[in-house]
């Protein structure tokens, strides 16, 4: 809400007071706000207030050609854009019955996992900063930058790669690229003990995060929680394994879980996922040189492309949880309807509202960052 439209409401005398937490606040991820009702420093009521990042993507997509939309979709989630690209591309492929070449599928896996690591490092950085540990933030952002360098090299874009297109990927990997991926993975692996010592084992963080923002597995299932947040309550569910897409069913990886369901467990699950993502990437780096062939299926003239009528629901495991696209075509040159379901539409709204109640005001940042809520996904 714009400040000029805010009107103070007369309330009966009480010990409670209202606090607008955000939209410009270091304890909030992105531009997002919580309207808190406080008793002392304890939260009595929390209301999520979104819309600061609304760009009307779903409406815009209905007005653009199928191929034009690939430039729009990654912008829906800034820290982890690759799953958005993939979800949209998979939807168009399924509507058209396009068969994606195997090499493109492996390259897509590589892109997704690099993006997942980058997103997790970014989240750790932000999370650490809420406890005053700025060194971790600098490290996280600096190490993410190495991955962005890789993205720049093989896609041309640092943050929004716009690399997946319906039918495959846009361009072939540069010479010696896999070697550089491998070196970056070596470096990241060597950094993990440093991160553990600086952040994950740090008592400043452990004492702030343990027992904060607890949810049980029953609550998580009832509230529609997905991704690492659900796995932190002990349920080993991962779309990559249980509703497999691309070549994830040919890859070996584990699904880390934790039992306690608090901010600490959620962060730890992400830390353990880094190891699994590196493991997946190593398999991709090993397998890719032997998988030769085209990197995309032939598609019709993209400027006069009428996608057959139908509807499809695609799901991808992003770094935040279950990302889904519902795409409807009426046989025309533009999508009839695209519905984006980001995982944060649950985590940042209902879940955060419920978990904030009863907690203290300084724990809200812990809860929000450990949920890894991404406001642009909510606003779309």
């Amino acid at each position: 809400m714009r400040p000029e439209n805010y009107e103070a409401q007369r309330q009966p005398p009480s010990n409670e007071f209202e606090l607008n937490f955000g939209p410009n606040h270091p304890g909030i991820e992105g531009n997002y706000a919580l309207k808190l009702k406080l008793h002392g420093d304890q939260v009595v009521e929390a209301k999520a207030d979104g819309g600061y990042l609304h760009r009307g993507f779903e409406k815009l997509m209905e007005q653009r050609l199928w191929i034009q939309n690939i430039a729009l979709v990654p912008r829906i989630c800034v820290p982890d854009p690759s799953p958005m690209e993939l979800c949209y591309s998979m939807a168009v492929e399924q509507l058209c019955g396009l068969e994606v070449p195997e090499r493109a599928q492996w390259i897509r896996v590589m892109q997704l996992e690099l993006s997942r690591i980058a997103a997790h490092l970014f989240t750790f950085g932000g999370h650490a900063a809420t406890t005053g540990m700025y060194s971790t933030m600098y490290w996280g952002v600096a190490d993410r930058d190495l991955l962005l360098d890789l993205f720049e090299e093989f896609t041309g874009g640092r943050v929004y790669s716009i690399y997946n297109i319906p039918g495959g990927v846009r361009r072939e990997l540069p010479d010696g690229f896999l070697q550089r991926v491998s070196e970056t993975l070596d470096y990241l692996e060597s950094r993990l003990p440093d991160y553990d010592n600086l952040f994950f084992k740090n008592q400043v963080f452990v004492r702030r995060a343990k027992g904060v923002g607890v949810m049980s597995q029953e609550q998580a299932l009832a509230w529609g929680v997905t991704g690492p947040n659900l796995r932190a309550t002990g349920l080993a569910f991962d779309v990559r394994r249980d509703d497999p897409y691309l070549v994830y069913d040919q890859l070996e990886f584990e699904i880390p879980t934790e039992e306690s369901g608090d901010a600490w467990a959620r962060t730890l699950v992400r830390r353990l996922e880094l190891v699994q993502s590196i493991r997946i990437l190593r398999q991709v780096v090993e397998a890719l040189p032997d998988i030769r062939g085209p990197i995309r299926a032939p598609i019709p003239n993209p400027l006069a492309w009428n996608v057959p009528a139908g509807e499809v629901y695609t799901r991808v495991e992003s770094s935040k949880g279950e990302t889904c696209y519902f795409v409807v075509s009426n046989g025309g040159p533009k999508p009839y309807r695209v519905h984006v379901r980001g995982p944060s539409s649950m985590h940042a709204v209902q879940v955060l509202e419920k978990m904030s109640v009863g907690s203290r005001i300084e724990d809200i940042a812990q809860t929000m960052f450990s949920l890894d809520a991404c406001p642009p996904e909510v606003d779309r």
Partner: protein
Amino acid sequence: MSKEIAHWLDNLLEEIEGIKVRRKSSRRVRVDVPADALPALLELLQGRAGYIHLSAISCVDWIEEEEFELVYHVWSYESHSLVSAHIRIARDPGVYLSVYDLYQPAAFFERDIHEMYGIHFEGSPNMEKFILTEWNGPPPMRKEFDSEAYINEHLSWQNYNPEWLQELIAEGGGIIIPPEEQRFSQKKK
């Protein structure tokens, strides 16, 4: 697994009138039901077949048929399959029942659809505006709402021509897009 799915689908077919089931792939099932039978279907799916996760509720505006299509995507953590239940409701008055008592995530999706399409869900806990807090126009995701026409009608176009750009152009540089080639050219009100 597929046997189990076939089993409960058969049961459902017997219990709900007017239901149409289509298997789209090994883990995707499309179900079309009459609007009044949807709560019963979801209750069966959740209670008997383990579809406890409401992944999303999507809305499609079929303006020519004067109907809204609501699609409920539910996922089972046990049988690893997704059922998309499609219903059609009349565009006018655009009222339907909330499924919040079955699936709590429905509150967000119903609120979102209410905001973007103007469908009222009876029994939904919160129908307040969320994203478009200061929007007084019609629900913007409806097909009859033309965003470009709205902008031309309500906002004025600025002629972006700062001094530094004029200097550049005078020197023979800069990017000049003639008005007839601009996509959003200044249209007459």
